[in-house]
């Protein structure tokens, strides 16, 4: 399969690979996917609680080039956004930005889920109600 230049760029030079301290109260961690399915994505956000803004985002992904690119792009987009803005990120925006082929839409869905899962973790940690399952993807 031919990958788009943007996928190749994110794969070759992934942004924000790493780990945030998940024990910190203002860090939310989302871990989605399963090893048997060939994709595991971990996305973390660090939130400035006074402004509700995401100050840092890190990812680690086990998966194909599109999965790595989707999560790398997600971390770029998350930084500087408020939590509410981050919640609004739709997987199809990732598909468009990376020009993912139809068989790789799954990777963008995983990234969106990872974002939501990280935000949810942050909310629960800080005494806010958990997000409702917003979108039925699968």
């Amino acid at each position, binding site marked *: 399969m031919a990958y788009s230049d943007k996928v190749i760029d994110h794969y070759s030079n992934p942004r924000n690979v790493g780990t945030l301290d998940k024990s910190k109260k203002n860090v939310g961690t989302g871990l989605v*996917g399963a090893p*048997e*399915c*060939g994709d595991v994505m971990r996305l973390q956000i660090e939130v400035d609680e006074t402004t509700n803004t995401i100050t840092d985002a890190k990812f680690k*992904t*086990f998966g194909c*080039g599109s*999965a790595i690119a989707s999560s790398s792009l997600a971390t770029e987009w998350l930084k500087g956004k408020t939590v509410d803005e981050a919640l609004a990120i739709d997987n199809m925006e990732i598909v468009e930005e990376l020009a993912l082929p139809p068989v*790789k839409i799954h990777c963008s869905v995983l990234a969106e889920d990872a974002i939501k899962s990280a935000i949810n973790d942050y909310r629960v940690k800080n005494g806010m109600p958990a997000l409702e399952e917003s979108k039925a*993807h699968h």
Partner: protein
Amino acid sequence: MLKLPIYLDNNATTPLDPRVLEAMMPYLTEVFGNAASRNHPFGWAAEEAVDYAREQIASLINCDSKEIIFTSGATESDNLGIKGVFEMYAQKGNHIITATTEHKAVLDTCKHIEKLGGRVTYLPVNSEGLISLEDLEAAMTPQTVLVTIMYGNNETGTIQPIREIAAIAHKHGALFMTDGTQAVGKIPVDVIADGIDIMAFTAHKMYGPKGVGALYVRRKNPRVKVTAQMDGGGHERGMRSGTLNVPGIVGLGKACELARLEMAADTARLSALRDKLERELLTLEESYVNGSREHRLPHVTNISFKYVEGEGLMMGVKDLAVSSGSACTSASLEPSYVLKALGLSDDLAHSSLRFGLSRFTTEEQIDYAIGHVKEAVTKLREMSPLWEMFKEGIDLSKIEWAEH
């Protein structure tokens, strides 16, 4: 200067040896006759070339030249051998025994046989990819007409105990067929000593052209017959009709001759290169060779790199043409059925690379491949949450994954 990408997918197909092309050239141009035209010199010249190729092939596998049936390749040979026996020996029985790790040309043909009312036993393999002779013995019935087990596996290189398998088949009055596609031309295959009754193989896995293969069909002790799968002029002793692919056959013959003369030297060189590749890659933690390391083809190794995903790995080793166990699509994530049959988990089967070396593979290429793979695996592991968890001593099997 090393030319990239480097081709290490020689189990899929090999490049044509220039000496084979040279032998074929006249038959693509001036010697164009139909080998079945018995009434003029154009036909005779073609027939003579075909007969010579039969001799070259026969010398490689130790058979009589009349026992070679030309086909379009190993898939057709497998089809002809299995379906041909099933039809020809319908009076005797309808049971066929094969293994779960066979090539699709065998497995899908067996599935077809089942639709026709045949019964097929698919023997499991152990963690090294070897079938159990006890299982085979237990599966034999008076209705068993054919045991078909491949010689060397295309994904792992594992070589089955062919002589023992043949002996068991014969003890129970069944024929023994083998898909010799990966083995013929690479290791000594002797149909007499091995007890092979029917064998499929093809030119393009041994530096010959694509589109030409052969089926060895034993003529004596026992005399084996297969029902033709294609009706026509009754070529190839009535077993495979169709105008012979003379240039292709000449190429197959030449490829067999070169294999016979150069096998020992190729094997020594390739197994040394393969061992170096393997030794170096196994210095990466949590990497494993798939299949038997004792009973295997000299030019193949299949290695799993744990905590790295197969398709991501393939993208990381873009300068190498290798094959991955992974067939990752969002619709169906299917890891290699061969590796799964060896007992590998889905994720480990996904993260495997198959390296197939050839006569044309150089040490410089292998050195490059070693560095390239090491770099890609290391980089992907640094990016892998699974690797991080493993390093922290977390038991991944205990995690409740949010499956998709």
